[in-house]
């Protein structure tokens, strides 16, 4: 990109500058002499064209909407479409969550996500559900709950994400949509069907590919892995490595990569390391596009686009000085917008205490609206593209992620390397904790700049004790009784003979060698099979459709 003569001149000048600045920093007490990113990339005080001298603009950056998509997946960026403001919701029974959704829509969310629809394996009247029913999540035992949840919600206008990787959940969503008169061929939405080698995961992807073409059935959850303590480079590297392994399995099932890969979405984090996070989103897009184009010969341009939903980093949220969490999360959200994500949840300030209230959830929506509509940040696509620093970080992160991917590939792919990844994750988490306990990593108000009086906490307590609205969410154990009443009504009113037949057919489908489990699951949920009954059918089948959640969760 630059002439040799210029680079020689710049190299000399830079060397002189660095000597000078290093001397200043060396002599100045308290100066920041060293800084490394979460991924271990050393950060210099200044970046120049020398740091991007090998960049080939068309090959490495290009234009937004074109390979390698470093600068964004859509040509017009946020000018054509702002991020979806999508705050995770789930509390009480379907009635409470439906009410919260309607309220959030009135505040300006543009998409929906529901947590708690991943089946627990037992119904609300099971002893094991005591203390959980409708606490941090919605409780959805049967189709009746899904019907209530989506009552009066226009799912054509508000795209819905189901935080679940279960055939049962998806079947209920389909049955609910059908009742609303929406054909599967037109149905939109997405789910947390994290890519893994289970029959359930692959059956869902295959079924949707053939019958629900607009549904995003594949999912890469690296966001919760980041919460578990990994680095930005691992977030990228593990995400790509997991994709490769699943794509290889699907291709071996005789499926064309272009038929399903465009329906995989990323779930990513955005945390404290501001510029490294921006670089990360750019790096994910570039590596994704290169992998599908060069390794798998994908032709569908959509396959090459890494589309991302971001939820901001939660482990840095603090109980001390709780309103600081508003400021933290706003910066994390800003990183994600500068990095070009498609959809976002900004954490609420009270999440270290309890489930968000209307007040705190609304502030998360407003934070996004301020970024989107007041600051002008969204008017230019990839505004930090060309920054010597951000481009250099993007390149270095890609190198680190590639090393991680190569290592996993050399061990036979991410399924075989799963325990290794888990061990590495735990090691990183311990290191992070050491850094916090030692004060090396500053958490304002917690291990540094502590306010013994904590005026913010006092303010929150005053709100909690005297406001005429809920300032900190309190769990009402009576939710369980309410849900048991709903469940009892379902069991009484449904056609139990018809259900029994449908469950027998589901059991046969689960035992069959080459039968997709989705059609029989849909039929059974239409007969109001509950999550507890579903779990018993699955447990009774000879074939395992999934490993336990415990084994599979990397976070």
């Amino acid at each position, binding site marked *: 990109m630059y002439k040799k003569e210029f680079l020689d001149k710049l190299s000399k000048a830079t060397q002189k500058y660095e000597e000078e600045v290093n001397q200043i920093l060396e002599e100045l007490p308290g100066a920041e002499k060293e800084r490394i990113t979460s991924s271990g990339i050393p950060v210099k005080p200044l970046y120049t064209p020398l740091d991007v001298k090998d960049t080939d603009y068309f090959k490495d950056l290009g234009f937004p909407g074109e390979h390698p998509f470093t600068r964004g997946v859509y040509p017009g960026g946020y000018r054509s479409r702002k991020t979806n403001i999508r705050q995770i919701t789930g509390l009480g029974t379907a009635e409470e969550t439906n009410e919260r959704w309607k309220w959030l829509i009135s505040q300006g969310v543009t998409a929906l996500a529901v947590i708690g629809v991943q089946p627990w394996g037992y119904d609300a009247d099971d002893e094991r559900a005591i203390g959980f029913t409708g606490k941090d999540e919605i409780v959805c035992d049967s189709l009746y709950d899904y019907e209530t949840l989506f009552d009066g919600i226009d799912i054509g206008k508000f795209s819905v994400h189901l935080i679940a990787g279960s055939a049962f959940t998806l079947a209920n969503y389909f049955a609910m949509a059908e009742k609303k008169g929406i054909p599967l061929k037109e149905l939109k939405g997405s789910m947390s069907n994290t890519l893994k080698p289970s029959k359930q995961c692959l059956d869902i992807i295959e079924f949707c590919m053939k019958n629900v073409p607009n549904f995003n059935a594949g999912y890469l959850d690296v966001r919760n892995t980041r919460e578990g303590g990994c680095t930005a480079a691992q977030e990228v590297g593990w995400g790509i490595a997991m994709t490769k392994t699943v794509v290889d399995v699907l291709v071996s099932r005789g499926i064309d990569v272009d038929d399903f890969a465009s329906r995989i979405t990323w779930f990513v984090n955005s945390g404290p390391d501001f510029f490294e996070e921006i670089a990360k989103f750019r790096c994910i897009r570039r590596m994704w596009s290169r992998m599908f184009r060069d390794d798998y010969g994908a032709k569908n341009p959509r396959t090459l686009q890494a589309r991302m939903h971001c939820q901001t980093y939660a482990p840095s949220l603090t109980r001390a000085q709780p309103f600081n969490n508003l400021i933290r999360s706003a910066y994390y959200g800003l990183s994600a917008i500068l990095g070009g994500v498609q959809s976002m949840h900004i954490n609420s300030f009270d999440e270290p205490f309890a489930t968000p209230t209307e007040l705190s959830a609304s502030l998360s929506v407003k934070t996004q609206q301020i970024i989107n509509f007041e600051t002008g940040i969204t008017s230019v696509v990839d505004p930090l593209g060309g920054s010597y620093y951000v481009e250099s970080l993007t390149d270095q992160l890609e190198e680190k992620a590639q090393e991680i991917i190569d290592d996993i590939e050399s061990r036979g792919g991410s399924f075989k390397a799963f325990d290794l990844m888990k061990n590495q994750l735990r090691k990183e988490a311990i290191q992070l904790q050491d850094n916090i306990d030692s004060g090396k990593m500053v958490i304002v108000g917690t291990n540094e700049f502590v306010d013994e009086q904590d005026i913010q906490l006092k303010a929150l307590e005053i709100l909690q004790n005297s406001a005429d609205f809920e300032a900190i969410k309190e769990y009402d154990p009576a939710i369980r009784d309410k849900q048991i009443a709903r469940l009892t009504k379902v069991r009484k009113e449904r056609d139990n003979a018809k259900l029994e037949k449908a469950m027998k057919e589901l059991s046969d489908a689960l035992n069959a060698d080459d039968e997709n489990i989705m059609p029989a699951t849909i039929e059974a949920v239409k007969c109001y099979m509950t999550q507890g009954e579903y779990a018993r059918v699955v447990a009774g089948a000879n074939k395992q459709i999934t490993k336990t*959640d415990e084994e599979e969760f990397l976070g």
Partner: protein
Amino acid sequence: MKQSIKLLLSRDDMTHQRGYWVITNALRDAGIEVVLGGIQTPSAIVETAIQEDVDIIGYRIMQGSPKVLVPLLIEKMKAREIEDIPVMVGGIIPTKDEELIRELGVKEVIHPYTPLNRIVETINKICGMPTEKTEV
């Protein structure tokens, strides 16, 4: 006097395990024997505590409700006559719930950002072990 402390560490749900494993590691480094209960209901915690003859129970709660689960645990402990085993609770614990469960006899409540060495010191103190300076 006992040579070392044996602690049962259980949690309420399957997600977000970072704290669980970080604490496990720190306790082991400090010479505490940790029995990994994993995801357990209050009844299961009690049975494991009996079988393993532990000195103290650590219960991490995040998705569940502390004000429901902790009274249940204590009720089950009383039924099996092990209510003298001290209980520590950690996780996402609302302030009002913390007051309630402390009244019920929970010895300590650990919130995010409690330094690991302080957790170790607290366990040593509760279990009557010498309070030597612990490096974590």
